[in-house]
Protein backbone atom coordinates (compact mmCIF):
# COMPACT_ATOMS: atom_id res chain seq x y z
CA UNK A 1 0.00 0.00 0.00
CA UNK A 2 1.25 3.50 -0.78
CA UNK A 3 1.10 5.46 2.48
CA UNK A 4 1.65 9.21 2.86
CA UNK A 5 2.46 10.57 6.32
CA UNK A 6 2.08 14.31 6.80
CA UNK A 7 4.19 15.22 9.83
CA UNK A 8 6.58 12.31 9.19
CA UNK A 9 9.52 13.69 11.16
CA UNK A 10 7.65 13.59 14.44
CA UNK A 11 8.81 10.91 16.84
CA UNK A 12 5.78 8.66 16.61
CA UNK A 13 5.47 9.24 12.86
CA UNK A 14 9.03 8.03 12.27
CA UNK A 15 8.40 4.88 14.24
CA UNK A 16 5.21 4.35 12.26
CA UNK A 17 7.05 4.90 8.96
CA UNK A 18 9.74 2.36 9.87
CA UNK A 19 7.14 -0.20 10.84
CA UNK A 20 5.20 0.33 7.61
CA UNK A 21 8.40 -0.18 5.60
CA UNK A 22 9.11 -3.40 7.47
CA UNK A 23 5.68 -4.64 6.55
CA UNK A 24 6.26 -3.96 2.87
CA UNK A 25 4.37 -0.74 2.37
CA UNK A 26 5.61 2.19 0.30
CA UNK A 27 6.09 5.19 2.57
CA UNK A 28 6.47 8.88 1.80
CA UNK A 29 6.15 11.92 4.01
CA UNK A 30 5.51 15.63 4.15
CA UNK A 31 6.97 17.86 6.84
CA UNK A 32 8.29 21.35 7.32
CA UNK A 33 11.23 19.86 9.17
CA UNK A 34 13.86 17.67 7.48
CA UNK A 35 14.51 14.00 8.28
CA UNK A 36 18.18 13.68 7.28
CA UNK A 37 18.59 10.09 8.41
CA UNK A 38 15.40 8.90 6.73
CA UNK A 39 15.79 5.24 5.69
CA UNK A 40 16.27 4.55 1.97
CA UNK A 41 12.96 4.18 0.23
CA UNK A 42 11.22 6.83 2.32
CA UNK A 43 10.79 10.01 0.33
CA UNK A 44 10.34 13.13 2.47
CA UNK A 45 9.03 16.34 0.92
CA UNK A 46 9.99 19.33 3.00
CA UNK A 47 6.91 21.52 2.63
CA UNK A 48 4.06 22.92 4.71
CA UNK A 49 0.97 20.72 4.51
CA UNK A 50 -1.22 23.80 4.06
CA UNK A 51 0.65 24.96 0.94
CA UNK A 52 -0.10 24.32 -2.71
CA UNK A 53 3.06 22.21 -3.09
CA UNK A 54 1.60 19.67 -0.64
CA UNK A 55 -1.44 19.25 -2.85
CA UNK A 56 0.91 18.53 -5.75
CA UNK A 57 2.34 15.60 -3.80
CA UNK A 58 -1.13 14.09 -3.47
CA UNK A 59 -1.82 14.72 -7.16
CA UNK A 60 1.46 13.31 -8.37
CA UNK A 61 1.80 10.29 -6.07
CA UNK A 62 -1.85 9.36 -5.42
CA UNK A 63 -1.36 7.66 -2.02
CA UNK A 64 -3.79 4.86 -1.09
CA UNK A 65 -3.77 5.86 2.53
CA UNK A 66 -2.80 8.91 4.56
CA UNK A 67 -1.77 8.97 8.22
CA UNK A 68 -2.15 12.54 9.40
CA UNK A 69 0.34 13.34 12.14
CA UNK A 70 1.12 16.94 11.20
CA UNK A 71 -0.46 18.49 14.26
CA UNK A 72 1.54 20.72 16.55
CA UNK A 73 1.08 19.42 20.04
CA UNK A 74 3.77 21.13 22.07
CA UNK A 75 2.50 24.25 23.73
CA UNK A 76 5.54 26.38 23.02
CA UNK A 77 3.90 27.46 19.77
CA UNK A 78 1.56 30.43 20.24
CA UNK A 79 -2.09 29.46 20.63
CA UNK A 80 -3.45 31.11 17.51
CA UNK A 81 -0.69 29.77 15.27
CA UNK A 82 -1.19 26.32 16.62
CA UNK A 83 -4.91 26.56 16.03
CA UNK A 84 -4.40 27.59 12.42
CA UNK A 85 -1.77 24.96 11.67
CA UNK A 86 -3.80 22.19 13.23
CA UNK A 87 -7.19 23.08 11.77
CA UNK A 88 -6.21 24.22 8.28
CA UNK A 89 -3.65 21.44 8.02
CA UNK A 90 -6.27 18.85 8.92
CA UNK A 91 -8.73 20.32 6.45
CA UNK A 92 -6.10 20.21 3.68
CA UNK A 93 -5.25 16.56 4.39
CA UNK A 94 -8.86 15.37 4.20
CA UNK A 95 -9.70 17.51 1.16
CA UNK A 96 -6.69 16.15 -0.72
CA UNK A 97 -7.56 12.58 0.28
CA UNK A 98 -11.01 13.12 -1.18
CA UNK A 99 -9.86 14.78 -4.41
CA UNK A 100 -6.97 12.48 -5.21
CA UNK A 101 -8.51 9.12 -4.56
CA UNK A 102 -7.09 7.98 -1.22
CA UNK A 103 -9.27 5.27 0.29
CA UNK A 104 -8.15 5.58 3.90
CA UNK A 105 -7.24 8.42 6.24
CA UNK A 106 -6.08 8.08 9.83
CA UNK A 107 -6.00 11.04 12.21
CA UNK A 108 -3.80 10.52 15.24
CA UNK A 109 -5.29 12.41 18.17
CA UNK A 110 -4.83 12.30 21.93
CA UNK A 111 -6.64 11.03 24.96
CA UNK A 112 -6.35 14.43 26.65
CA UNK A 113 -9.33 15.27 24.42
CA UNK A 114 -11.57 14.04 27.27
CA UNK A 115 -10.10 16.47 29.77
CA UNK A 116 -9.11 16.14 33.43
CA UNK A 117 -11.52 17.35 36.11
CA UNK A 118 -12.81 16.34 39.54
CA UNK A 119 -16.11 15.24 38.03
CA UNK A 120 -14.76 13.30 35.07
CA UNK A 121 -14.74 9.53 35.27
CA UNK A 122 -12.21 6.82 34.65
CA UNK A 123 -12.25 4.86 31.37
CA UNK A 124 -13.81 7.23 28.88
CA UNK A 125 -15.66 5.71 25.97
CA UNK A 126 -15.37 7.22 22.50
CA UNK A 127 -18.86 8.69 22.89
CA UNK A 128 -17.87 10.85 25.86
CA UNK A 129 -17.83 14.58 25.13
CA UNK A 130 -14.54 16.50 24.89
CA UNK A 131 -14.11 18.33 28.19
CA UNK A 132 -10.45 19.27 27.77
CA UNK A 133 -11.10 22.99 27.36
CA UNK A 134 -12.91 23.38 30.67
CA UNK A 135 -9.65 23.12 32.57
CA UNK A 136 -6.98 23.38 29.87
CA UNK A 137 -7.92 25.99 27.22
CA UNK A 138 -4.60 25.43 25.44
CA UNK A 139 -5.93 22.09 24.22
CA UNK A 140 -8.80 23.67 22.25
CA UNK A 141 -7.08 23.14 18.91
CA UNK A 142 -6.49 19.46 19.54
CA UNK A 143 -10.13 18.94 20.42
CA UNK A 144 -11.27 20.92 17.38
CA UNK A 145 -8.91 19.05 15.03
CA UNK A 146 -10.11 15.70 16.42
CA UNK A 147 -13.78 16.58 15.94
CA UNK A 148 -13.08 18.12 12.55
CA UNK A 149 -11.29 14.97 11.39
CA UNK A 150 -14.23 12.89 12.61
CA UNK A 151 -16.57 14.99 10.46
CA UNK A 152 -14.85 13.53 7.38
CA UNK A 153 -16.86 10.37 8.12
CA UNK A 154 -19.99 12.09 6.81
CA UNK A 155 -18.40 14.67 4.52
CA UNK A 156 -16.43 12.09 2.53
CA UNK A 157 -18.29 8.82 3.04
CA UNK A 158 -16.23 7.06 0.37
CA UNK A 159 -13.08 7.63 2.45
CA UNK A 160 -12.46 5.28 5.38
CA UNK A 161 -11.65 7.80 8.07
CA UNK A 162 -10.28 6.66 11.40
CA UNK A 163 -9.64 8.91 14.40
CA UNK A 164 -7.34 7.36 16.99
CA UNK A 165 -7.14 8.88 20.47
CA UNK A 166 -3.84 7.69 21.86
CA UNK A 167 -2.88 7.80 25.50
CA UNK A 168 0.54 9.20 26.44
CA UNK A 169 3.49 7.41 24.87
CA UNK A 170 6.87 6.75 26.42
CA UNK A 171 9.99 4.98 25.26
CA UNK A 172 13.55 5.29 24.05
CA UNK A 173 13.01 8.46 22.01
CA UNK A 174 12.49 10.54 25.18
CA UNK A 175 10.26 12.98 23.35
CA UNK A 176 6.54 13.57 23.62
CA UNK A 177 4.38 15.31 26.20
CA UNK A 178 4.85 12.81 29.02
CA UNK A 179 8.53 12.13 28.30
CA UNK A 180 9.30 15.84 28.36
CA UNK A 181 7.47 16.15 31.66
CA UNK A 182 9.35 13.21 33.18
CA UNK A 183 12.76 13.98 31.71
CA UNK A 184 13.80 16.45 34.42
CA UNK A 185 15.26 15.14 37.67
CA UNK A 186 12.35 16.74 39.50
CA UNK A 187 8.77 16.13 38.55
CA UNK A 188 6.22 18.49 40.10
CA UNK A 189 3.03 17.03 41.55
CA UNK A 190 0.15 18.77 43.29
CA UNK A 191 0.34 18.13 47.03
CA UNK A 192 -2.44 15.77 48.08
CA UNK A 193 -3.28 14.63 44.55
CA UNK A 194 -1.89 11.68 42.67
CA UNK A 195 -3.89 10.95 39.50
CA UNK A 196 -3.61 7.86 37.35
CA UNK A 197 -1.50 8.40 34.23
CA UNK A 198 -2.20 6.18 31.25
CA UNK A 199 0.71 5.56 28.94
CA UNK A 200 1.91 3.01 26.41
CA UNK A 201 5.22 2.19 24.76
CA UNK A 202 5.80 4.30 21.66
CA UNK A 203 6.56 1.15 19.66
CA UNK A 204 3.16 -0.21 20.65
CA UNK A 205 1.58 3.11 19.66
CA UNK A 206 3.19 2.89 16.21
CA UNK A 207 2.07 -0.73 15.94
CA UNK A 208 -1.50 0.31 16.82
CA UNK A 209 -1.51 2.91 14.04
CA UNK A 210 -0.28 0.32 11.53
CA UNK A 211 -2.87 -2.18 12.75
CA UNK A 212 -5.60 0.43 12.29
CA UNK A 213 -4.40 0.98 8.74
CA UNK A 214 -4.16 -2.68 7.84
CA UNK A 215 -7.57 -3.48 9.34
CA UNK A 216 -9.13 -0.64 7.32
CA UNK A 217 -10.61 0.67 10.54
CA UNK A 218 -13.34 3.28 10.19
CA UNK A 219 -14.64 5.44 13.05
CA UNK A 220 -13.29 6.83 16.31
CA UNK A 221 -11.22 4.67 18.67
CA UNK A 222 -9.35 5.06 21.93
CA UNK A 223 -5.92 3.40 21.96
CA UNK A 224 -4.09 2.50 25.17
CA UNK A 225 -1.59 0.02 26.59
CA UNK A 226 -1.11 -1.43 30.07
CA UNK A 227 -2.96 -0.42 33.26
CA UNK A 228 -2.47 3.22 34.26
CA UNK A 229 -0.20 4.14 37.18
CA UNK A 230 -0.38 6.98 39.72
CA UNK A 231 1.81 9.92 38.69
CA UNK A 232 4.18 9.67 41.67
CA UNK A 233 4.65 5.93 41.14
CA UNK A 234 5.44 6.62 37.48
CA UNK A 235 7.80 9.50 38.31
CA UNK A 236 9.73 7.46 40.87
CA UNK A 237 9.89 4.41 38.63
CA UNK A 238 11.38 6.60 35.91
CA UNK A 239 14.14 7.65 38.27
CA UNK A 240 12.90 11.17 38.97
CA UNK A 241 12.02 12.75 42.29
CA UNK A 242 8.36 13.64 42.67
CA UNK A 243 8.16 17.08 44.24
CA UNK A 244 4.74 17.69 45.81
CA UNK A 245 3.93 21.40 45.65
CA UNK A 246 0.84 23.01 47.24
CA UNK A 247 -1.51 24.01 44.47
CA UNK A 248 -1.39 27.70 45.39
CA UNK A 249 2.37 27.79 44.82
CA UNK A 250 2.48 25.77 41.60
CA UNK A 251 2.08 28.76 39.28
CA UNK A 252 5.13 30.41 40.83
CA UNK A 253 7.18 27.21 40.90
CA UNK A 254 6.71 26.19 37.26
CA UNK A 255 9.95 26.89 35.40
CA UNK A 256 11.91 27.42 38.63
CA UNK A 257 13.79 25.20 41.12
CA UNK A 258 14.51 22.63 38.43
CA UNK A 259 10.81 22.11 37.67
CA UNK A 260 9.53 22.24 34.09
CA UNK A 261 7.64 25.24 32.71
CA UNK A 262 3.99 24.28 32.26
CA UNK A 263 0.94 26.32 31.26
CA UNK A 264 -1.54 26.95 34.12
CA UNK A 265 -4.11 24.61 32.55
CA UNK A 266 -1.73 21.69 33.01
CA UNK A 267 -2.42 21.76 36.76
CA UNK A 268 -5.73 19.94 36.21
CA UNK A 269 -3.78 17.10 34.56
CA UNK A 270 -1.61 16.83 37.67
CA UNK A 271 -4.70 16.61 39.90
CA UNK A 272 -7.14 14.49 37.95
CA UNK A 273 -6.77 11.47 35.69
CA UNK A 274 -7.56 11.11 32.01
CA UNK A 275 -8.08 7.39 31.53
CA UNK A 276 -9.62 5.85 28.42
CA UNK A 277 -11.33 2.56 27.62
CA UNK A 278 -9.68 1.00 24.58
CA UNK A 279 -11.80 -2.16 24.47
CA UNK A 280 -13.50 -1.41 21.14
CA UNK A 281 -10.16 -0.83 19.41
CA UNK A 282 -8.85 -4.13 20.75
CA UNK A 283 -12.05 -5.94 19.82
CA UNK A 284 -12.01 -4.62 16.24
CA UNK A 285 -8.30 -5.06 15.50
CA UNK A 286 -7.01 -7.81 17.81
CA UNK A 287 -4.32 -5.31 18.86
CA UNK A 288 -2.27 -6.40 21.88
CA UNK A 289 0.40 -4.26 23.48
CA UNK A 290 3.77 -5.98 23.77
CA UNK A 291 5.41 -3.75 26.39
CA UNK A 292 4.07 -3.64 29.93
CA UNK A 293 4.44 -0.60 32.20
CA UNK A 294 7.80 -1.72 33.63
CA UNK A 295 9.28 -2.37 30.18
CA UNK A 296 8.09 0.97 28.93
CA UNK A 297 9.47 2.90 31.88
CA UNK A 298 12.76 0.96 31.70
CA UNK A 299 13.27 1.91 28.02
CA UNK A 300 12.63 5.56 28.80
CA UNK A 301 14.86 5.46 31.85
CA UNK A 302 17.75 3.90 29.95
CA UNK A 303 17.44 6.52 27.24
CA UNK A 304 17.57 9.46 29.63
CA UNK A 305 20.51 7.85 31.40
CA UNK A 306 19.05 7.39 34.87
Amino acid at each position, binding site marked *: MKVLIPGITGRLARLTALRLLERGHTVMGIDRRPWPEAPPGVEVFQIDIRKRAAEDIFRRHRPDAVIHMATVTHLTVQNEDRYRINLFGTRAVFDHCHHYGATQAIFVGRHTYYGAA*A*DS*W*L*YHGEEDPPMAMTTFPELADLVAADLYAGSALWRYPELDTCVLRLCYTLGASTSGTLATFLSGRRVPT*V*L*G*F*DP*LFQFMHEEDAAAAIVVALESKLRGVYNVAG*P*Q*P*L*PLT*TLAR*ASGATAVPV*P*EALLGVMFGRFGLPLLPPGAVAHL*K*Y*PVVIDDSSFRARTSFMHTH*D*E*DDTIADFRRAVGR
Partner: protein
Amino acid sequence: MVFGNGHGHGLGLGASLRYDGVVWTDPEVEDRLERLEIPFGPRGIDPYGASRKELGLFMSLLGLLYKRYFQVRVHGVENVPQRGRAMLVGNHQGGVALDGAMVIASMFFEMEPPRLAQGMAEKFIYMLPFASEWATRCGQLSGLPEHAERLLQDERILMVFPEGARGTAKLYWERHSLVHFGTGFMRLALATGTPIVPFAFLGGGEAIPTVMNLYRIGKLLGAPYIPVTPWLLPVPRRVPLDIYYGEPMHFTGSETEEDAVIEGYVDQVKDRIAHMIEDGERERGER
Protein backbone atom coordinates in the same frame (compact mmCIF):
# COMPACT_ATOMS: atom_id res chain seq x y z
CA MET B 1 3.10 7.39 65.34
CA VAL B 2 0.20 7.45 67.73
CA PHE B 3 -0.35 3.73 67.60
CA GLY B 4 2.97 2.60 68.94
CA ASN B 5 3.20 4.85 71.99
CA GLY B 6 1.96 2.33 74.51
CA HIS B 7 -0.83 4.58 75.80
CA GLY B 8 -3.53 2.70 73.98
CA HIS B 9 -6.26 3.92 76.35
CA GLY B 10 -6.82 0.29 77.29
CA LEU B 11 -7.74 -0.52 73.73
CA GLY B 12 -4.55 -2.34 72.88
CA LEU B 13 -4.24 -0.30 69.73
CA GLY B 14 -0.53 -0.88 69.41
CA ALA B 15 -0.69 -4.64 69.65
CA SER B 16 -1.56 -5.77 66.16
CA LEU B 17 0.37 -3.30 64.03
CA ARG B 18 3.69 -4.17 62.51
CA TYR B 19 6.03 -1.60 61.03
CA ASP B 20 7.83 -2.95 57.96
CA GLY B 21 9.92 0.15 57.36
CA VAL B 22 7.42 1.58 54.92
CA VAL B 23 3.95 1.28 56.36
CA TRP B 24 2.16 0.04 59.45
CA THR B 25 0.27 -3.11 58.68
CA ASP B 26 -1.53 -5.81 60.52
CA PRO B 27 -0.54 -9.46 59.70
CA GLU B 28 -4.22 -10.39 59.38
CA VAL B 29 -4.71 -7.52 56.94
CA GLU B 30 -1.69 -8.70 54.96
CA ASP B 31 -3.17 -12.17 54.71
CA ARG B 32 -6.57 -10.85 53.67
CA LEU B 33 -5.06 -8.48 51.10
CA GLU B 34 -3.30 -11.50 49.63
CA ARG B 35 -6.67 -13.19 49.13
CA LEU B 36 -8.52 -10.14 47.84
CA GLU B 37 -9.69 -11.03 44.32
CA ILE B 38 -8.74 -7.78 42.63
CA PRO B 39 -6.40 -7.54 39.62
CA PHE B 40 -3.52 -5.55 41.11
CA GLY B 41 -0.88 -4.82 38.46
CA PRO B 42 2.86 -5.49 38.88
CA ARG B 43 3.18 -2.32 40.96
CA GLY B 44 0.26 -3.17 43.23
CA ILE B 45 -2.22 -0.81 41.60
CA ASP B 46 -5.62 -1.95 40.33
CA PRO B 47 -7.21 -0.51 37.14
CA TYR B 48 -9.08 2.12 39.19
CA GLY B 49 -6.09 3.33 41.17
CA ALA B 50 -6.62 1.31 44.36
CA SER B 51 -3.26 0.42 45.84
CA ARG B 52 -2.32 -2.74 47.75
CA LYS B 53 0.06 -0.83 49.95
CA GLU B 54 -2.29 2.00 50.87
CA LEU B 55 -5.18 -0.44 51.31
CA GLY B 56 -2.98 -2.31 53.78
CA LEU B 57 -2.45 0.78 55.88
CA PHE B 58 -6.07 1.89 55.57
CA MET B 59 -7.50 -1.53 56.48
CA SER B 60 -5.09 -1.84 59.42
CA LEU B 61 -6.28 1.47 60.86
CA LEU B 62 -9.89 0.75 59.97
CA GLY B 63 -9.53 -2.66 61.63
CA LEU B 64 -8.60 -0.96 64.90
CA LEU B 65 -11.74 1.16 64.79
CA TYR B 66 -13.84 -1.76 63.64
CA LYS B 67 -12.70 -4.37 66.15
CA ARG B 68 -11.21 -2.56 69.09
CA TYR B 69 -12.93 0.78 69.32
CA PHE B 70 -16.51 0.05 68.29
CA GLN B 71 -16.87 -3.74 68.42
CA VAL B 72 -19.04 -3.98 65.35
CA ARG B 73 -21.53 -6.86 65.25
CA VAL B 74 -22.23 -8.11 61.75
CA HIS B 75 -25.34 -10.18 61.03
CA GLY B 76 -26.17 -12.08 57.84
CA VAL B 77 -22.89 -11.61 56.06
CA GLU B 78 -23.63 -14.91 54.28
CA ASN B 79 -26.25 -13.00 52.27
CA VAL B 80 -23.49 -11.17 50.40
CA PRO B 81 -22.34 -13.07 47.28
CA GLN B 82 -18.80 -14.41 47.59
CA ARG B 83 -18.00 -13.51 44.01
CA GLY B 84 -19.47 -11.47 41.22
CA ARG B 85 -21.31 -8.20 41.06
CA ALA B 86 -23.51 -7.10 43.93
CA MET B 87 -24.91 -3.88 45.26
CA LEU B 88 -25.02 -3.21 49.00
CA VAL B 89 -27.86 -0.77 49.57
CA GLY B 90 -28.44 0.69 53.00
CA ASN B 91 -29.21 3.56 55.33
CA HIS B 92 -27.01 6.38 56.46
CA GLN B 93 -26.52 6.90 60.19
CA GLY B 94 -24.00 9.21 61.79
CA GLY B 95 -22.87 12.58 60.51
CA VAL B 96 -19.70 11.44 58.80
CA ALA B 97 -19.03 8.39 56.65
CA LEU B 98 -18.75 6.02 59.64
CA ASP B 99 -21.42 3.76 58.13
CA GLY B 100 -19.56 3.40 54.84
CA ALA B 101 -16.27 2.76 56.59
CA MET B 102 -17.76 0.00 58.77
CA VAL B 103 -19.46 -1.68 55.80
CA ILE B 104 -16.12 -1.66 53.95
CA ALA B 105 -14.45 -3.13 57.04
CA SER B 106 -17.10 -5.84 57.42
CA MET B 107 -16.69 -6.93 53.78
CA PHE B 108 -12.94 -7.07 54.23
CA PHE B 109 -12.80 -8.75 57.66
CA GLU B 110 -15.87 -11.03 57.65
CA MET B 111 -16.13 -12.29 54.05
CA GLU B 112 -14.31 -15.41 52.84
CA PRO B 113 -12.57 -14.58 50.57
CA PRO B 114 -12.43 -10.96 51.63
CA ARG B 115 -14.04 -8.41 49.33
CA LEU B 116 -13.45 -4.73 48.69
CA ALA B 117 -16.68 -2.77 48.91
CA GLN B 118 -16.41 0.28 46.70
CA GLY B 119 -18.46 3.33 47.56
CA MET B 120 -19.79 6.11 45.46
CA ALA B 121 -18.35 9.05 47.36
CA GLU B 122 -19.45 12.67 47.35
CA LYS B 123 -17.80 14.61 44.55
CA PHE B 124 -16.44 17.35 46.81
CA ILE B 125 -14.00 14.83 48.30
CA TYR B 126 -12.09 14.72 45.03
CA MET B 127 -11.50 18.47 45.07
CA LEU B 128 -9.76 18.28 48.45
CA PRO B 129 -6.06 17.51 48.65
CA PHE B 130 -5.17 14.22 50.42
CA ALA B 131 -8.83 13.19 50.65
CA SER B 132 -8.84 12.85 46.89
CA GLU B 133 -5.66 10.81 46.85
CA TRP B 134 -6.60 8.55 49.75
CA ALA B 135 -10.11 7.86 48.57
CA THR B 136 -8.78 6.74 45.19
CA ARG B 137 -5.99 4.58 46.64
CA CYS B 138 -8.57 2.80 48.80
CA GLY B 139 -10.81 2.04 45.84
CA GLN B 140 -13.43 4.69 46.64
CA LEU B 141 -14.46 6.49 43.46
CA SER B 142 -16.55 9.61 43.00
CA GLY B 143 -20.27 8.94 42.80
CA LEU B 144 -20.72 9.06 39.05
CA PRO B 145 -23.08 6.66 37.27
CA GLU B 146 -20.26 5.81 34.84
CA HIS B 147 -18.10 4.58 37.71
CA ALA B 148 -20.93 2.57 39.28
CA GLU B 149 -21.77 0.81 36.03
CA ARG B 150 -18.18 0.03 35.20
CA LEU B 151 -17.40 -1.42 38.63
CA LEU B 152 -20.45 -3.70 38.46
CA GLN B 153 -19.53 -4.88 34.97
CA ASP B 154 -16.13 -5.66 36.45
CA GLU B 155 -17.87 -7.93 39.02
CA ARG B 156 -17.03 -5.65 41.94
CA ILE B 157 -19.13 -5.02 45.01
CA LEU B 158 -20.72 -1.59 45.04
CA MET B 159 -21.83 0.17 48.22
CA VAL B 160 -24.76 2.53 47.71
CA PHE B 161 -26.50 4.90 50.10
CA PRO B 162 -29.56 6.02 48.13
CA GLU B 163 -30.26 8.73 50.71
CA GLY B 164 -27.14 10.56 49.61
CA ALA B 165 -25.79 13.55 51.54
CA ARG B 166 -29.31 14.20 52.89
CA GLY B 167 -28.93 10.91 54.74
CA THR B 168 -25.70 11.75 56.52
CA ALA B 169 -27.30 15.08 57.51
CA LYS B 170 -29.92 13.28 59.65
CA LEU B 171 -29.95 14.62 63.20
CA TYR B 172 -29.76 12.40 66.30
CA TRP B 173 -33.55 12.16 66.84
CA GLU B 174 -34.05 11.39 63.13
CA ARG B 175 -31.51 8.59 63.10
CA HIS B 176 -33.92 5.69 62.60
CA SER B 177 -35.84 7.38 59.80
CA LEU B 178 -35.09 7.09 56.11
CA VAL B 179 -35.10 10.16 53.88
CA HIS B 180 -35.93 10.11 50.18
CA PHE B 181 -34.28 7.30 48.17
CA GLY B 182 -32.87 8.14 44.76
CA THR B 183 -33.84 5.81 41.90
CA GLY B 184 -30.51 5.73 40.06
CA PHE B 185 -29.32 2.58 41.85
CA MET B 186 -32.40 0.64 40.77
CA ARG B 187 -32.06 1.54 37.11
CA LEU B 188 -28.43 0.54 37.34
CA ALA B 189 -29.28 -2.77 39.01
CA LEU B 190 -31.79 -3.53 36.23
CA ALA B 191 -29.36 -2.51 33.48
CA THR B 192 -26.52 -4.64 34.84
CA GLY B 193 -28.54 -7.53 36.31
CA THR B 194 -27.07 -6.91 39.75
CA PRO B 195 -28.55 -8.45 42.92
CA ILE B 196 -29.30 -5.90 45.65
CA VAL B 197 -28.25 -6.82 49.19
CA PRO B 198 -30.16 -4.53 51.57
CA PHE B 199 -28.42 -3.60 54.80
CA ALA B 200 -29.26 -1.68 57.94
CA PHE B 201 -26.59 0.16 59.91
CA LEU B 202 -27.38 0.89 63.57
CA GLY B 203 -25.51 2.73 66.28
CA GLY B 204 -24.08 5.45 64.06
CA GLY B 205 -26.56 7.95 65.46
CA GLU B 206 -25.40 7.17 69.01
CA ALA B 207 -21.74 7.25 68.02
CA ILE B 208 -22.00 10.62 66.32
CA PRO B 209 -25.18 12.29 67.62
CA THR B 210 -25.51 15.24 65.27
CA VAL B 211 -27.46 18.06 66.92
CA MET B 212 -27.07 20.50 64.07
CA ASN B 213 -25.36 20.91 60.74
CA LEU B 214 -23.40 24.00 59.73
CA TYR B 215 -24.17 24.47 56.07
CA ARG B 216 -22.55 27.87 55.53
CA ILE B 217 -19.24 27.03 57.15
CA GLY B 218 -19.31 23.74 55.26
CA LYS B 219 -19.66 25.59 51.96
CA LEU B 220 -16.66 27.72 52.87
CA LEU B 221 -14.60 24.59 53.53
CA GLY B 222 -15.77 22.93 50.33
CA ALA B 223 -18.01 20.35 52.06
CA PRO B 224 -21.83 20.19 51.94
CA TYR B 225 -22.05 20.86 55.71
CA ILE B 226 -20.18 20.32 58.98
CA PRO B 227 -21.98 18.17 61.58
CA VAL B 228 -21.95 19.42 65.16
CA THR B 229 -22.25 17.07 68.18
CA PRO B 230 -22.86 18.00 71.84
CA TRP B 231 -19.04 17.96 72.14
CA LEU B 232 -18.80 20.06 68.96
CA LEU B 233 -16.51 17.88 66.85
CA PRO B 234 -17.87 14.78 65.05
CA VAL B 235 -15.57 12.49 67.05
CA PRO B 236 -17.46 9.20 67.47
CA ARG B 237 -18.36 7.84 70.92
CA ARG B 238 -17.39 4.28 71.68
CA VAL B 239 -20.69 2.47 71.25
CA PRO B 240 -21.58 -0.94 69.81
CA LEU B 241 -22.53 -0.82 66.15
CA ASP B 242 -24.63 -3.34 64.23
CA ILE B 243 -24.75 -4.12 60.54
CA TYR B 244 -27.57 -6.36 59.30
CA TYR B 245 -27.27 -7.78 55.79
CA GLY B 246 -30.55 -9.04 54.34
CA GLU B 247 -31.24 -11.63 51.66
CA PRO B 248 -30.39 -10.49 48.12
CA MET B 249 -33.26 -8.96 46.15
CA HIS B 250 -33.41 -9.63 42.42
CA PHE B 251 -35.23 -7.31 40.07
CA THR B 252 -35.60 -7.78 36.35
CA GLY B 253 -36.69 -5.25 33.78
CA SER B 254 -36.22 -3.88 30.34
CA GLU B 255 -34.38 -0.67 31.34
CA THR B 256 -37.18 1.41 29.83
CA GLU B 257 -39.70 1.25 32.69
CA GLU B 258 -41.69 4.32 33.69
CA ASP B 259 -40.48 6.10 36.81
CA ALA B 260 -43.57 4.88 38.68
CA VAL B 261 -42.50 1.26 38.17
CA ILE B 262 -38.94 1.98 39.26
CA GLU B 263 -40.17 3.86 42.32
CA GLY B 264 -42.24 0.80 43.22
CA TYR B 265 -39.09 -1.35 43.18
CA VAL B 266 -37.17 1.27 45.15
CA ASP B 267 -39.95 1.29 47.77
CA GLN B 268 -39.63 -2.47 48.14
CA VAL B 269 -35.94 -2.04 48.97
CA LYS B 270 -36.63 0.92 51.25
CA ASP B 271 -39.32 -1.04 53.13
CA ARG B 272 -36.97 -3.96 53.63
CA ILE B 273 -34.31 -1.66 55.05
CA ALA B 274 -36.88 0.11 57.27
CA HIS B 275 -37.97 -3.29 58.68
CA MET B 276 -34.38 -4.32 59.24
CA ILE B 277 -33.77 -1.06 61.13
CA GLU B 278 -36.86 -1.70 63.31
CA ASP B 279 -35.78 -5.27 64.06
CA GLY B 280 -32.30 -4.03 64.82
CA GLU B 281 -33.56 -1.37 67.23
CA ARG B 282 -35.55 -4.05 69.06
CA GLU B 283 -32.48 -6.30 69.35
CA ARG B 284 -30.40 -3.38 70.54
CA GLY B 285 -33.06 -2.56 73.13
CA GLU B 286 -33.73 0.87 71.69
CA ARG B 287 -37.39 0.21 71.04
